[in-house]
């Protein structure tokens, strides 16, 4: 009886690639609540997790789009850092709104640069974006010369700073609220989900990832679709950098370092197929939440730093294996 009812779930798992990561997230949350003695499940910590989810999540949405086309962008961590630096540099000198727009535009430009090089030269995206990862990280370090770009705490009290990740909203009693960056993430998710499911661009993007040759034969301009995906990816990484800088009020040359790996890990956990053609934006975001939650749990439980990376890696591998097994089970007759 139980086996039969479980079998009934197979079509749902098959159709929705994010089911695995949702299951993992639910199990982890139950475990964290049960074992942390309230250290993990308190409003301050949940608020922190959601803030991290917001900025990493925006970057992840962009990476998922690129993965959807069958390419990869590992330069997003550096783009994120450049976005943060541009925002902070111009926010205090000119205007925060102008600075944010400039940072997002710079991210889009980096994305366009990646996309153009990849499509024009036919060089694998891994190689090109590895190069730009280093170029823009080096540029970030060179620009800051060892110091941070910052906006002093006392000057970050205007409405613009508030909207751009500088404060929490929905505070109530002991609830710490949610960083405004999270609202940007929700907006990004809604817009991109609609674009992916109901617009020609979304249709083309997944078609290109499924089979570029086939898409080309149907009249889809493959290169143009890929460049658009890279531009969106860069712009979202730039926006993520703006929101992180808005929260911290400071950024140095290391801002965003290694976040690209987390974004890719979140996409894979969330059911995005690296070969392209199938992605789940919601799944990728839950993947981000899972990674942020695991990191947070290890910190609040004071895991020794020498074990932190090992355990995080083991848990991510275990989660990915569990998800893979679940999908195999779902396709088995």
């Amino acid at each position, binding site marked *: 009886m139980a086996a039969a009812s479980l079998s009934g779930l197979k079509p749902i798992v098959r159709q929705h690639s994010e089911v695995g990561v949702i299951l993992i997230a639910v199990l982890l949350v139950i475990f964290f609540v049960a074992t942390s003695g309230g250290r993990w499940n308190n409003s301050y910590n949940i608020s922190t997790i959601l803030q991290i989810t917001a900025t990493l999540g925006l970057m992840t949405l962009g990476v998922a789009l690129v993965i959807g086309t069958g390419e990869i962008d590992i330069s997003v961590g550096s783009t994120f850092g450049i976005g943060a630096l541009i925002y902070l540099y111009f926010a205090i000198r000119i205007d925060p709104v102008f600075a944010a727009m400039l940072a997002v535009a710079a991210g889009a430009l980096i994305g366009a640069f990646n996309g153009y090089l990849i499509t024009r030269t036919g060089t694998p995206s891994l190689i090109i974006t590895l190069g730009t990862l280093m170029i823009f990280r080096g540029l970030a370090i060179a620009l800051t010369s060892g110091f941070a770009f910052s906006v002093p*705490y006392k000057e970050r009290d205007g409405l613009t700073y508030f909207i751009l990740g500088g404060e929490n909203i929905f505070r109530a009693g002991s609830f710490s609220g949610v960083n405004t960056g999270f609202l940007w993430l929700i907006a990004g998710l809604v817009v991109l989900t609609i674009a992916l499911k109901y617009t020609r661009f979304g249709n083309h993007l997944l078609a290109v990832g499924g089979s570029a040759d086939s898409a080309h034969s149907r009249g889809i301009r493959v290169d143009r679709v890929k460049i658009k995906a890279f531009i969106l990816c860069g712009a979202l990484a730039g926006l993520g950098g703006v929101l992180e800088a808005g929260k911290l*009020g400071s950024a140095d040359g290391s801002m965003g370092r290694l976040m690209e790996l987390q974004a890719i890990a979140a996409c894979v956990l969330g059911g995005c197929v690296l070969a392209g053609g199938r992605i789940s934006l919601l799944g990728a975001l839950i993947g981000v939440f899972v990674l942020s939650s695991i990191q947070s749990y290890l910190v609040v439980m004071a895991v020794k730093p020498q074990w932190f990376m090992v355990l995080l890696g083991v848990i991510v591998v275990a989660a990915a294996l569990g998800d893979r*097994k679940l999908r195999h089970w779902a396709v088995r007759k």
Partner: protein
Amino acid sequence: MKHATQLAAASLLATTALAGVAVAQEKQFRFVMVSHIGSNDANMGWLTESLAAFEEKYPDVTTEYISTNNYSVQEHVRLLEQAIATRPDGIAVPIVDNDAFEGPLRRAIEAGIPVVAFNIPDSRPADERIPYLTYVGGDEYLTGLHLGQYALEQAAAGNIPAPTGIVCASHDAAHQGLKARCAGMQAAMEGTGAKFEELFIGAEPAAARNTLQSFMQANPETNYIFTVAGWSSPWAWGVANDMGLSPDVDNEGVTVMTVDEAPVSIEGIRAGHLLAANSQGFWLQGYAPMEWLYWNKTLGYEPKSDILTGPVIINADNADKWAALVRSVFGDQEYDNQNTW
């Protein structure tokens, strides 16, 4: 699926066990040190050993040490926020970046959590800085300045050559504390006519050696190398030695200086490879913040000035004493493990 589940369960159980957090244990206070020094830095041993000694003396206190091996200000603030979320009775934290740390620390202080800055203070004037109880630590600028002044004394005495070119080799271009060490050294060397350069070498040994070697080839007048981490001093000495630049301490060739009371620094001095290093009183920087947090919680005491724990010059005259001290803290095996000469 079964294996994956078992693996996940084992990992999470191990996590809980490794956390060493006895939720059921009845401790009156819990103090958290949110550090920028990860387990890939030998100096973490000073802090964790001093926390263990503190717990022995004050059995009603639990201390926790939180850090990362992939340091960035962004990551540090995240760790700090998560540490605050656990509502500790006190926090010790280095103020690596005033603007990034001010928001979370002010919120923690407003929530009644006392904060002590250690290792790196808020660099602003007292009336503008984050309202922490006190700062316990060394002075990064004085570290470079005093080491530079010591080198000039030795040069004047004819023990080492006079400086013609100095390179300050740093593994983290974004670390303001390391920049201050270089600035101190630069200040000490002003007036000597020697060219001063700051060089980012990174923390990866092969890349660091390549970078330094290229620099030395392009700048043959350089005869003082100042590494701002103890663990990078053997790399600098090795590069100079491979290039035939006579890097041991004598009155010819290159002279290498470094920092910290780490085994690698002390043994480098004892072997005649390094001129000097410094101690900024790392052990005290772990212990004293905890003690002030404890006294603040139990007695309401607040120190009225910063508490400087260094720099103290370590040289050939006192290196044996320092070796004995460090061995007593780290143990012989750990001391020998960390001596990479």
